[in-house]
């Protein structure tokens, strides 16, 4: 899974008010807390920790905005296909290198954003015109609270394909995150 969807864990709509989130949190604690589930402590512990974590994110306005950004703008995981002619051996080799770094970056994305970022940047080093990698770099930077840098990467993606609606949405969400 990419990022946990905390709204799903708390069983609320993403548009839920703070009060609704709080009520949902308390109700779920009732359901899951180990004090109320002495016969299945391990399960209760895991469920409760999830609920507590979700509430920690959604009850904090800053974190909630970031989380909204994360779930609406998931990372690009699929490697785009590229075909090469037999005389483009050198280019093909470079692309393969870039693809390898990209996949490593995707694998690290959920766990460790700073390392994932490095991998995507390496991929860019091999293959500059790589919108998926640029996009993922932007996401990593958002996570590391470097919004301005992230914006410049998203702009590069947009410049490559001005008709892409998705990147425009991402940029709008980024503005919301800032505001």
């Amino acid at each position, binding site marked *: 899974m990419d990022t946990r969807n905390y709204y799903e864990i708390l069983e609320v709509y993403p548009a839920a008010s703070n009060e609704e989130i*709080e*009520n949902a949190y*308390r*109700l779920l*604690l*009732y359901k899951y*807390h*180990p*004090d*109320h589930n*002495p016969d299945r*402590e391990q399960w209760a*512990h*895991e469920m*409760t*920790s*999830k609920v*507590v*974590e979700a*509430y*920690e994110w959604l009850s904090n306005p800053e974190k909630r905005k970031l989380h909204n950004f994360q779930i609406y703008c998931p990372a690009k995981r699929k490697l785009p296909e590229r075909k090469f002619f037999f005389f483009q051996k050198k280019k093909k080799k470079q692309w393969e290198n870039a693809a390898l770094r990209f996949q490593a970056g995707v694998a*690290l994305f959920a*766990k*460790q954003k700073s*390392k994932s970022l490095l991998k995507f940047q390496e991929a860019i080093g091999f293959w500059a015109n790589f919108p998926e990698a640029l996009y993922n770099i932007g996401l990593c930077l958002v996570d590391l609270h470097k919004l301005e840098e992230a914006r410049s990467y998203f702009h590069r993606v947009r410049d490559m394909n001005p008709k892409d609606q998705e990147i425009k949405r991402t940029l709008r969400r980024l503005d919301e995150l800032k505001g």
Partner: protein
Amino acid sequence: MSKIIGIDLGTTNSCAAIMQDNEVVIIPNAEGMRTTPSVVSFLKTGEWVVGEPAKRQEIINPESTVFSIKRFMGLKLTDPSVQKDRQLVPYELVAASNGDLRVRIRGRDFSPPEISAMILAKLKRDAENFLGEAVTKAVITCPAYFNDSQRQATKDSGRIAGLEVLRIINEPTAASLAAGFDRKTKRKIAVFDLGGGTFDLSILELGNGVFEVKSTCGDTHLGGDDFDQRIIEWLIEDFKGKENIDLRKDRIALQRLKEVAEKAKCELSEKMAAEITLPFIASDASGPKHLSAKLTRTKLEELTKDLIDATLPPCEQALQDANLRTGDINEVVMVGGMTRVPKVREVVRRLFGKELYEGVNPDESVAAGAAIQASVLKGNIRDILLLDVTPFSLGIRTEGGMFSKIVEKNSTIPVRKSEIFSTAKDNQTFVRIQVYQGEKPMAADNKLIGTFDLVGIPAAPREVPQIEVAFDIDANGIVRVSATDLASGKEQAIKITPNSGLTQSEISQFTKEQAAARVPVEQAPAPKAKKMDYPEAAPPEPAEDSEVKKPEKKKGLFGLFGS
């Protein structure tokens, strides 16, 4: 299922309660009082007395009477707070071989949990007499600022006293639980706890029956004893002025003064003036002298004004920590005998700008709350939930001796948090995980609470292996730390059981000792005929217990009716 009692193990007074038929019943002690002084006095014979009889020895036999033991629970002798407190107690404190604190009485060393266990054992025994059946399980309260070794020490005392401690809960939480608020509405509660020896203010949030401690702040050396001391000093000065005799040198006179001072203080909560008379307090060449004085409420307020004012800064600090202003507080709950003093109530009322919540008994509400939580754990109450927080940040030592926090202070538990770390050198095949607790940026300044190695990491350049370190804290506050190498899937974990300084074998040894010592001293008075006979050293299984006893009782009844 056997009964679970709730115990408020206080600095100066303790209290026990139980839920019976959906109501909290405070368990009276053998002397018929609802609270028991937390005092243990050791007699020359090697036996000890607990409670009211021990309190009477406080000044006459100061070296062998232990009070305020709670201040020393789970601490080392070198701890700065211990160094300060040891000036205030007449008994001798020494260090054990591992640096832990011990109380030396007549050449024998006792650990603080052992002494607390003597108090708990009395409460347990009184509860058994009252209920007519064995009590083996309890919920015990402790201050919100207690750290995990202090909490563990409290648990250990329970075990030594023959009680299985199901949960340690925070005193302010217990008090607000007992306040019986309407649980549906959301509210913020301030619990103002001014007891015999300590003061603290906690801010809690209550919503849908979930109680959460938001912040806590206090003064561990402010309480009723300080107020008594002021009265004693005033009486001594007064007497010195009239008769030119200094009573400070006379221990027995001091003991008598202490008793009357406390009584006068309590009286002044209701009346405007109290008469203090102590006949034959001293004598000189002209004959016996009597002390008589009249203490008015205004005078008492004048004597203790600075003490009352000292409660205000912690209140403001606690509010600030919870990001709240006084106006945000919906209820103010007063706990501790000292909150009966009209001046204290007035000051608090003025601070929060609202009427105080009246529905609690300040001496008993903490024990009552513990009893309610006991009932929750038993499964009898389903609409209440206590949520605890970690009192300290937890993390591991990383490169350069830095402390990387993984679980922040005041995180709600249960909690699971993880972070990824890597190796510092090329081809490093193992990492040592050192778990620390504390708030300082350097690991060495914090407290090391556990160490383990993760071995068998495949050789790789530095910073390539990914090691996930996860912290799991369960509802009881037990911390489990695991390290996983994400590449190979190798996992290594430890459970960190907080350490009170006592080893398991020491605990079981003390348990046996106390069980053995209890029999000759304490069975002699046999206060009630209701007392059941059962081996105290090893309480029988709860299930068997109720099965065996019930028929006997019935038989007795039928016999009675039959004749």
